[in-house]
């Protein structure tokens, strides 16, 4: 009997294409990868001869580095395409860009783009597997996987956990993917933020709880995740000032008391210290924010390994 999930050649557009069993399988693979990252010589030859392209049409240094490190540690060749210095700036279409890259023999694409659905386009144009590194406000499955991995590693399971995500829910792709993934693994998620930054129909779509009051939202939470609050939202007329936002939604020593005593504190970064989270919490005993970054490399290695059929 062979019940091992099959990943060869699959896309990672979002987590809705993956079952709970498959997600757990990825987490276990990531655990193995994490061990490699702790070695003195952080490299295995498993993807030698494969070429991975990081296609970053929207700038993101951290995520791109994480993907590229993951690929290098598996011995894949990495080519990096950045929109800011590329033909896309000269008006070349995404279609032509992908045709050009594909002609050079790419085996796997990791894409970051401001347009929802663009990973699907890259797959359509190339026929190659695509890992979504964030498409607009739509999805960010590798971030969700590393968040889930971080919780799973600390607490053993997500089953029955209460996770509260606080901040600009409207503009967060991280939230959308986490809602899908965490629910599959049995966690119940509460999203919290001002009503102007809360998309409609969240309960219907994701089966989550929506709260506008931080105290209510944090009640009994096992995990608390803060989101980056951007100043642009103020000029868009969605809230009056960062100061007022902070007063009502900041994760601080005082507000964290409303959650469970040992609740894990997370943040996908980059943080605005002093706005959505205070240093005392970001750097505090309960925080796993730095570990999240380390886990990001491991999770991305696991996906690349599984999709390209690396040999264990």
């Amino acid at each position, binding site marked *: 009997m062979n019940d091992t999930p099959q990943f060869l050649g699959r896309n990672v557009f979002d987590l809705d294409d993956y079952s709970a069993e498959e997600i757990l399988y990825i987490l276990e693979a990531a655990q193995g990868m994490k061990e490699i990252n702790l070695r003195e010589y952080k490299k295995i030859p498993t993807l030698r001869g494969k070429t991975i392209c990081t296609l970053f049409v929207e700038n993101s240094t951290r995520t791109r580095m994480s993907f590229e490190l993951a690929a290098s540690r598996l011995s894949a060749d990495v080519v990096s395409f950045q929109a800011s210095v590329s033909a896309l700036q000269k008006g070349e*279409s*995404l*279609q032509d860009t992908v045709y050009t890259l594909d002609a050079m023999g790419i085996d796997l694409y990791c894409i970051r*783009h*401001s*347009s*929802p*659905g*663009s990973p*699907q*386009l890259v797959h359509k144009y190339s026929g190659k597997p695509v890992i979504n590194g964030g*498409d*607009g*406000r*739509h*999805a960010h499955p590798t971030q969700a996987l590393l968040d889930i991995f971080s919780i799973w590693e600390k607490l053993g399971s997500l089953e029955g956990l209460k996770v509260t995500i606080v901040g600009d829910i409207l503009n967060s*792709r991280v939230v*959308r993917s986490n809602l899908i993934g965490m629910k599959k693994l049995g966690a119940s998620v509460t999203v919290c933020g001002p009503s102007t930054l809360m*998309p*409609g*129909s*969240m309960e*219907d*779509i994701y089966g989550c709880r929506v709260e506008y009051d931080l105290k209510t939202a944090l009640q009994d939470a096992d995990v608390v995740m803060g989101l980056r609050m951007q100043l642009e939202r103020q000029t868009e007329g969605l809230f009056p000032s960062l100061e007022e936002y902070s007063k009502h939604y900041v994760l601080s020593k005082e507000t964290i008391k409303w959650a469970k005593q040992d609740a894990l504190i997370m943040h996908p970064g980059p943080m605005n210290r002093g706005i959505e989270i205070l240093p005392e919490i970001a750097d505090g005993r309960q925080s796993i924010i730095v570990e999240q970054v380390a886990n990001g490399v491991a999770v991305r290695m696991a996906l690349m390994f599984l999709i390209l059929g690396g040999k264990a």
Partner: protein
Amino acid sequence: MKTLIKNGTVYIEGKLIKQDILITDEIITRVDDVIKVKADNEIDAEGLHVFPGFVDLHCHLRDPGQTYKEDIISGTKSAAKGGFTTICAMPNTDPVVDNIAAVEYVQRRAKDLGFCKVHVIGAITKKLEGAEISEMANMKEGGIIAVSDDGKCVQNAKLMLSCMKYATNFDIPLIIHAEDYNLAGKGQIHSGKICSQLGFSGIPTLAEEVIIARDIMLAENSKARLHIAHISTAKSLELVRQAKLNGMKITCEVTPHHLTLNEEACLGFDTNTKMKPPLRSEKDRKALVAALRDGLIDCIATDHAPHADFEKEREFDHAPFGITGFESAFAVLYDRLVTKGHLSLERLVEAMSIAPATLMNLGDKRISAGNPADLTIVDINDLTELSPETTLSKAKNNPWMGKKLKGKVVKTLCRGRITWEA
């Protein structure tokens, strides 16, 4: 020249009855149970339906200026294939049809080269900029049937009031594309469940409704003749219903896509589900169908909006709004509404021919002696299969490409001349 159409099921005064039709040159000269004359051309319509030629109040022919998307020849050919004999071209070309010279250009090209009758709609404001009133009276002399800033919407209420007063002065109807720019923002699709899920900026129903409410009030004040283009929400319908109950002369149209698709069509990121107004919720869609049935919605219009492949084949939020509509209109509505029992064939035909012509004074389109021989012959048992290879439009941006739909236009006659034959 005499043409005789034998044994067809003919739409006459709201009924479908077996009749023969005799055409002499461009005019219908006799409609009767049985006509026995020697004709130069006899069309056997046994098993087929004969309808008044379809009339479209809302299309974009992209000529002048964007003829890589469509031009008057390809656009009218495509219209004829869809059974249309009369269409009305929106002014958002390049340059904009906001002066009599541009009106005359479109009319002359259509008269010389077109495959159907083309009426011109002029701009409400110069260059559609929403800043100054266009030369409506001159354009009216040139033959425009209405004014519209379609694709754009006059945001300034004071200017809109002036435009309405001025248009009314010269007895020109205004066709309203209702969209509040601030509420619509950078919206890509309907602000609803699917939008929340896909992470797009949304276009709320309010963006349409606040402008319709405003324009109804402005029209009440100015006595303007308003026609609401591509109405898309349940609440908009309530606003129009109330205005009609108050005795205002206000009419509205709906597109085939808003009647048959909802926001869920956008789930696959197909840019051919992206248009303005966006595909709304299922609740809105059902309200539109009910309103078309009960006559609150006066007619159907395609909003045929051709775009080149390279424009639509890209990231969803970078693609332009709009889809083609001529060749899919009848089949989509017949297949999705009539065969499913949501709409009668008679009402569909009425709303695609007599009704739009009547409300814009485009002439008597009934199938009766003395009227122009503009006819659409349909086989309701045959299938329409849209494909990029066979479409006559230059554009292929249509969500029903590759789909098989029941109901096929087999022949179109415009002024007695066959303009399309399957």
